[in-house]
């Protein structure tokens, strides 16, 4: 069952991601991105990371992707019009990306064969997932948590200042 779900999700993720980087209509691209992000959230659930999956849906699908669509609508005078989206680097880019992916894959193999990763018994985390993450965020990881909060605040203010129309 899990394998089946993984395969379906993997196919969806890869195809939708390819659509994001190849489609000619930027609006379609954005929709494909949303699909892709949803599927990644599914993957998280598959890996027992429910809290992260929820965060993924809320933040990525609900905020980032919608923000993208807003930006698209603000910048393209006709949202649906097809404009030239790709530059002349298509072939070299594709080649490099492929080399990169297979290089990474080779490294994974190599490291696993060399026993780089510690083996542990597969303990299935239970319902304590959200609770534990919440506790950890407020105790062990409180400093990065606060730093990230400040980063968010700064980004908020920065975005407002940058996007503000002059004279307002």
């Amino acid at each position, binding site marked *: 069952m899990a394998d089946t779900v993984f395969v379906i999700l993997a196919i969806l993720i890869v195809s939708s991601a390819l659509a994001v980087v190849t489609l000619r209509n930027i609006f379609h691209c954005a929709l494909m991105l949303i699909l892709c992000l949803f599927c990644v959230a599914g993957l998280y659930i598959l890996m027992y990371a429910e809290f992260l999956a929820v965060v993924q849906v809320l933040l990525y699908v609900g905020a980032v992707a919608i923000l993208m669509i807003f930006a698209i609508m603000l910048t393209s005078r006709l949202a649906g019009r097809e404009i030239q989206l790709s*530059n002349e*680097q298509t072939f*070299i*880019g594709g080649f*490099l*990306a492929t*080399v*990169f992916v297979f*290089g*990474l894959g*080779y*490294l994974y193999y*190599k490291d696993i064969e060399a026993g780089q990763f510690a083996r542990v018994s597969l303990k299935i985390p239970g319902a304590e997932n959200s609770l534990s993450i919440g506790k950890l965020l407020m105790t062990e990881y409180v400093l990065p948590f606060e730093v990230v909060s400040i980063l968010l605040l700064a980004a908020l203010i920065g975005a407002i200042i940058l996007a503000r129309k002059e004279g307002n």
Partner: protein
Amino acid sequence: MHETAHSFILDNAYWIALLPLISSAIILFFTRWREPLSAGISITAIVLGWVASIWVMIEVLINSHGGHFQYIERAFDIVSFETMHLQLGFVIDPVAAMMLIVVTTVSSCVQIYSLGYMHGDPRFSRYYAYLSLFTFSMLGLVLANNFFLIFIFWELVGLTSYLLIGFWFEKKSASDAGKKAFITTKVGDLGFLLGLMLMFAWIGTFDYDEVFAAVKSGQIETWKLTTIGICIFCGAVGKSAQFPLHVWLPDAMEGPTPVSALIHAATMVAAGVYLVAKAMPLYTASTTAAAVVAYIGLFTSFFAASIALVQNDIKRVLAFSTLSQLGYMIMALGLNGILSEHVEPGTGYAAGTFHLMTHAFFKALLFLGAGSVIHAVHTNDIQLMGGLYGKMKKTASTFFIACLAIAGIFPFAGFFSKDEIIVATMGHPVFQTVASLVAFMTAFYMFRLYFLTFTGEPRDEEKYHHAHESPNSMTYPLMFLAVLAFGAGWFGAPGVKGFSNYIFEYGGHAHTPSAHWSVIIISTVLALCGIGLAYLMYYKKSISPDTVVEKVKPIYTLLYNKYYIDELYDFILIQPTYRLGRFLWSFDANVVDGLVNLQATITYWLSDVKHWIDKNIVDGTVNGFGLFCDAASGAFRKMQSGRLAHYLLAVVFGMILIILLASSNLLNWTLAKVGL
């Protein structure tokens, strides 16, 4: 240190000197724009000082037990080393007390007189500030308790004298005269300073008492004392305008006449006499030094009197008369150091200081009278005056009294002091003869001056017409001084006790003047002869002056031109100095400047060479680098397209390179090599 008497005024006598200093400061800093107030402050200060001086004199007389007054000295150290104590303090001895009275009296009269004389002058307040400053310096000089301090005040009076001679500095002759006075007296001051240095080197102290104690002990070789004495006398020669440094005093008459009366007749020029009197133990210890003093005084008195015979400028006649009289005093003081069996020890000292006092009064009176005349007729030339008696009765009568006093007619002040001096010359035939001759000449030129100015027919109608008697502020001081010119001599008259015995005593010898009838008769006869000759020549006109002049034309010309001393100095000192200056200038302009210009030319040429090298070789190298970089960067700049896609491509290349390195273990090998 002698301390026998204590009294309020003796302990605080230094305030007499400080009061004028304070008034001077107040005038300069606060009341310069309020002229009557300035004058009031100055006069108040000096009159207070005058009253205090009289009080001091009374205390001194009271404390003169048995004819010998113990010095009052108050001092504190300003510089104190193991072997050297430099003191700031004052000492009151009889001669200082006498000088205090002289200075404050004349100064008061002059300041009151100046109210009228300087009225309307644009620098009225400054004039009073200078007068006060001078009075302070002079009183400080009188009160100083050591040679070092006296030197400080000595220079201060020189400075104020310079300021006052050149007071009307718009007039070139006045500012030149100021400079001349300053520089000429500096020549003497150099000797004084040298004397002080030698004194400190050989005796080791500046203090009067200590110096004189050392002198009396006989431990110092006589030749050293002679050297010191002559050096210090150099200062006196400069300040008291003795030959050969007398040339500044006649020119100093360019200053306001009251200033001439105060500084260049009564007080400052007397400072030299005062210094010699103060240093008298040095001269009694060294006969050579005393002889130098005496001969210089003798020569000056005759020399100046002869010039005074023919001068036509009223103030210059008085100036040369001052020279002559100062020479008298110096001579008397010098004779004090040469023992003579004919006179009591101390006679010369008493005569010199006594004449210092009487002369101050009648000479101040003469100058103030001359000032009054000048004020009335606006000229100094006696040939343009005449017949002024009718217009200026007060001035003329006081002037007449002064003339009688200086001529030495009984019972005026000069009679007693001049006789005293001639008594002091007894035993020295040359001195006695010349001194008597000078007395005759003095009487002659003073009455020549009087007759030409006040009697006969007016020679300049217009000036005569405008002449008028001076205001009361000028005539009252004249009258006051006339009283002193009449009466001051009685203090030192033979047989009068109580004053002169103590004031003019020297070395423990109570001064008891005695009447030498031969001297009295001879000097009176000579004075009367002088007056009579002047009467015949300038009043009765029975002997024509022109005829006399014709007969002794060369001598007349010589005298009229003051023995050409100024010209001589000009020829042997000033012109050579100028020539040396011009020579040095041309040396500087040609040789030194030439060298500098040569160096500049060489530098210029070298810099041309360097310029070429710089331009072609150094700049060529730099430009070569620049061109190379320009060309190279032209190739590399194309990499900087500014396009995001190109940059990202480069990043990805780098990432792939890292992956390749990692997968081939080259990364680990490299990290191990560099020690990571």
